[in-house]
């Protein structure tokens, strides 16, 4: 038999930051993440995936999947062989995702399904190299990964893995924003925002008064998160290489005041002084003298004094699977069996 | 001005008058409102046997309905007491102490001592005890000895409407945690009760009947049983001094000892089961402190060492009755060295 391998990495910590408190965002329980993995395993079984690599965690996801494997009965649909990646010590930080994805790529995974929010995908993106990524949202605050039923995503990922589709046709490289600040370097899949908060604190950005500059890889009118501000004011489609850059300010001094859903349950007036297109390869120096750089909506880096943080729009982000494209194409036939009469 | 009202009405009146007098007094318990959050509000139950009926609408916001969640709301009453309120919580049946006992004996009872005398916890836990309603093993026990055993708790066991109002008023004004044990079979008994407020101090026994031959100590519902026996015995020329301690903690041992000094004979009537109960406690105290006065062995009339049975004929056997008290008294009066 062949050895078609798929990786699944799930972040146990995604989807429960302080937005649950400040903006009535919902909690995405561990149990549901484990269920999503199991629904995907069923889909993989149907399309003929041989082996699935699952990242391990202390949050209970991998443990729940292990329990599920142990309690399967003959009446349950067949699952591929499941292998848990437990070589690396679990740090309960983004490093766990990075380590898991790197090992999956090394082990020849044809596609890596990534369950989590923007932050999780960002971590995976840094490690997946050329391996296609299928980001699946397990939070309500995600601009990048889509909210999709895991079974369907599983079918698509499976079809990609078994070579039923032309990878180039069903995947595309997402642009990313690279930010260098205070000696650190981070990737953003959607947006980089500066705030005058001094500290990373509870990570989320929910106080528009603190925001100063916003850079987005894309901005869609139906998006959630900070990118919804340009999404409403000056949209920039996902498939365009260019992005947008905005200077923010208090509504009193603003050219435009945009009522945008900058977080679930949080539609607030954001003052915009000016905006412009951000071209691929362009490097921008942040004007804010001190504060925090937020990546994809979460405060990440505290900075002060020179050198000022630099933001670069790069075209070489992760290669992402377009679920719709996969299932719309000829691979669909793999799911059809002509019945002889 | 005294009028005749029921034990239930006496308790309700004590609560109402104290709530009127002191805004720190709040009442909480299951079905106090009766279907809180539903049209049922309009016909508030006032607790499962209607003891707090009428208070819910009379004192808006001060009579709280609770989920069936004893640990939480008994604990909440205790916490509120430490924060300056005077809560009266209703633990529907004393048998339910099992699901909230930690809050009572590890928290409320210990605060003052383990916090070096700095805590004041004026909480009252009203609870129903006692057999006789065919309520079987988990709704009929007489568990006041369990609370009596715990330092830091006070335990009142009213035997009549007059006692019920005066002891409950004292319990609410008392600065220590009080377990207030109401016998469910007494709710409809009646007696003379002053309309005015009054307090019966804790630790002061009531000599319900004078007599020189035998001291009969009885608590709660057993007081009426002892009196019935005393009447019958008076016919036979035996005069019983019937003493109702009214509170088991503190316990008025002086009145009991004084009486035994003059009668030389003791019978204790206690509805609870016989091991480490009020009867054994009082008997031990008397044997220890009035041994010379005793002219006969002490008799204890208690429930058997069994759960409370359901079948009527068995439950009737379980509960101490006047005949058993009469027999006990006759055995101590006929005893010869």
């Amino acid at each position, binding site marked *: 038999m062949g050895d078609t391998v798929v990786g699944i990495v799930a972040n146990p910590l995604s989807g429960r930051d302080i937005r649950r408190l400040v903006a009535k965002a919902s909690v995405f329980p561990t149990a549901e993440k484990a269920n999503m993995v199991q629904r995907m395993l069923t889909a993989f079984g149907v399309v003929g995936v041989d082996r699935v690599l699952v990242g391990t965690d202390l949050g209970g996801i991998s443990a729940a999947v292990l329990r599920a494997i142990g309690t399967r009965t003959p009446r349950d649909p067949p699952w591929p062989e499941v292998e848990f990646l437990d070589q690396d010590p679990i740090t309960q930080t983004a490093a766990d995702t990075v380590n898991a994805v790197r090992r999956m790529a090394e082990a020849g995974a044809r596609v890596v399904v990534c369950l989590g929010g923007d932050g999780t995908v960002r971590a995976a993106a840094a490690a997946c190299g050329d391996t296609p990524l299928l980001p699946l949202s397990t939070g309500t605050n995600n601009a990048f990964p889509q909210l999709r039923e895991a079974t369907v995503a599983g079918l698509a990922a499976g079809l990609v893995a078994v070579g039923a589709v032309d990878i180039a046709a069903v995947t595309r490289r997402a642009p990313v924003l690279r930010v260098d600040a205070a000696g650190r370097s981070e990737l953003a899949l959607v947006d980089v925002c500066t705030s005058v908060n001094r500290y990373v604190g509870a990570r989320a950005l929910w106080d528009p008064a603190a925001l100063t500059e916003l850079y987005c890889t894309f901005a869609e009118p139906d998006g959630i998160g900070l990118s919804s501000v340009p999404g409403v004011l000056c949209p920039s489609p996902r498939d365009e290489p260019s992005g947008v850059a905005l200077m923010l300010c208090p509504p009193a001094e603003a050219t435009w005041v945009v009522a945008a859903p900058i977080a679930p349950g949080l539609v607030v007036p954001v003052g915009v002084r000016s905006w412009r297109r951000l071209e691929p390869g362009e490097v921008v120096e942040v004007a804010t003298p001190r504060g925090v750089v937020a990546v994809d909506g979460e405060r990440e880096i505290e900075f002060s004094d020179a050198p000022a943080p630099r933001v670069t729009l790069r075209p070489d982000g992760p290669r992402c699977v377009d679920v719709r494209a996969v299932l719309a194409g000829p691979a669909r036939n793999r799911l059809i069996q002509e019945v002889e009469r | 001005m005294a009028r005749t009202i029921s034990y239930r009405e006496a308790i309700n009146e004590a609560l109402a008058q104290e709530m009127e007098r002191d805004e720190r007094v709040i009442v909480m318990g299951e079905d106090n409102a009766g279907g809180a959050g539903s049209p049922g509000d309009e016909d508030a139950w006032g607790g499962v046997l209607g003891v707090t009926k009428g208070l819910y609408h009379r004192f808006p916001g001060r009579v709280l309905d609770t989920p069936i969640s004893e640990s939480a*709301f008994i604990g909440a009453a205790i916490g509120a007491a430490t924060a300056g309120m005077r809560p009266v919580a209703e633990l529907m049946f004393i048998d339910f102490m099992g699901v909230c006992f930690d809050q009572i004996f590890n928290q409320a009872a210990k605060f003052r001592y383990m916090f070096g005398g700095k805590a004041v916890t004026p909480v009252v836990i009203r609870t129903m005890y006692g057999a006789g309603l065919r309520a079987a093993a988990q709704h009929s026990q007489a568990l006041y000895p369990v609370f009596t055993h715990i330092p830091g708790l006070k335990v009142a066991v009213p035997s009549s409407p007059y006692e019920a109002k005066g002891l409950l008023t004292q319990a609410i004004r008392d600065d220590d945690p009080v377990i207030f044990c109401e016998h469910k079979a007494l709710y409809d008994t009646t007696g003379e009760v002053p309309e005015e407020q009054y307090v019966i101090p804790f630790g002061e026994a009531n000599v319900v009947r004078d007599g020189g031959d035998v001291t009969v100590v009885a608590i709660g519902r057993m007081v009426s049983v002892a009196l019935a026996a005393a009447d019958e015995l008076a016919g036979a020329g035996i005069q019983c001094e019937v003493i109702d301690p009214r509170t088991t903690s503190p316990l008025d041992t002086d009145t009991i000892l004084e009486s035994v000094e003059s009668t030389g004979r003791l019978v204790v009537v206690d509805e609870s089961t016989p091991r480490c109960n009020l009867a054994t406690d009082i008997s031990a105290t008397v044997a220890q402190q009035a041994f010379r006065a005793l002219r006969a062995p002490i008799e204890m009339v208690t429930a058997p060492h069994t759960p409370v049975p359901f079948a009527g004929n068995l439950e009737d056997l379980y509960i101490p009755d006047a005949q058993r008290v009469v027999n006990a008294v006759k055995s101590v009066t006929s005893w010869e060295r």
Partner: protein
Amino acid sequence: MTDTLSTSVAYELKPEALHDAYRTMRTIRAFEERVHEEFATGDIPGFVHLYAGEEASAVGVCSHLDNRDTIASTHRGHGHCIAKRVDVKAMMAEIYGKSTGSCHGKGGSMHIADLSKGMLGANGIVGGGPPLICGTALAAKQKGTGGVGVAFFGDGASNQGTTLESLNLAAVWNLPAVFVAENNGYAEATSSTWSVASDNIADRAAGFGMPGVIVDGFDFFAAYEAAGEAITRAREGGGPTLIEMKFTRYFGHFEGDQQTYRADEVARARETLDCLLRFRGRVTETGQLSLETLDRIDAEVAELIDEAVDEAKRAPKPRAADLTTDVYVAY
């Protein structure tokens, strides 16, 4: 422009607030590490459970509280006491069982309390505190003081009926209460990843219709902001919140625990995650406090702890007569 903005930013801490927060966290750390040493010498009787490593939680939360507000603590309560301003010397004396202690030597480490400060006591019963906090929150609501009740409890207590009942009652009564689950990974020697079926304690909040958030318990600023939101919400009548602080305790369950059940996580936490270490780095980088200031605080705290221990050791024991006092107000 940015400066005019910064003044309006939520939870922006002024230097004096940072100063105070650091001093309190340092006091807790120094207190616990000293008790750890002293216990080893055999001078301290009984069970002692140390809070070292968890300082950001107690201080991040209590920085938002005043004397209207009450907290209930756990068997690991020293940190909560210090954060709620209980006198440090009286605490040390109490741990030594002396008459000058917070509870005149009749409570000990597991029962330190100061009701005048709204500190409802460390609690020897796992899950003992949350129901009491429902009560103090109810009292605040009834009296309209605007006070809030905060129940600290551990991952062990998160499985206790009392805790779950209290979460429900607080939601049903819409009480001004905040439940802070301090998940240090172990209930005694049992891992919370095994004993907590939902894995994340915060997940349980959804079942009671209240917000639940997970916070990096090693990060003072994260704890401070999350607690601030929850406490403000409670004060304004928004109802209860469940906050899960995730971190590790630096010492064993109790003093003398050999900790055979866990590996090197403590060393790693101390080096990379420690709340004081990170606090120092960050406030100096932003220039809000100087290293000199921080070091001076450390020195002052060290002196305070030395005095506390010396005085505690020299303090008189309770009198024999005290055995039977303060059982009742009147009996």
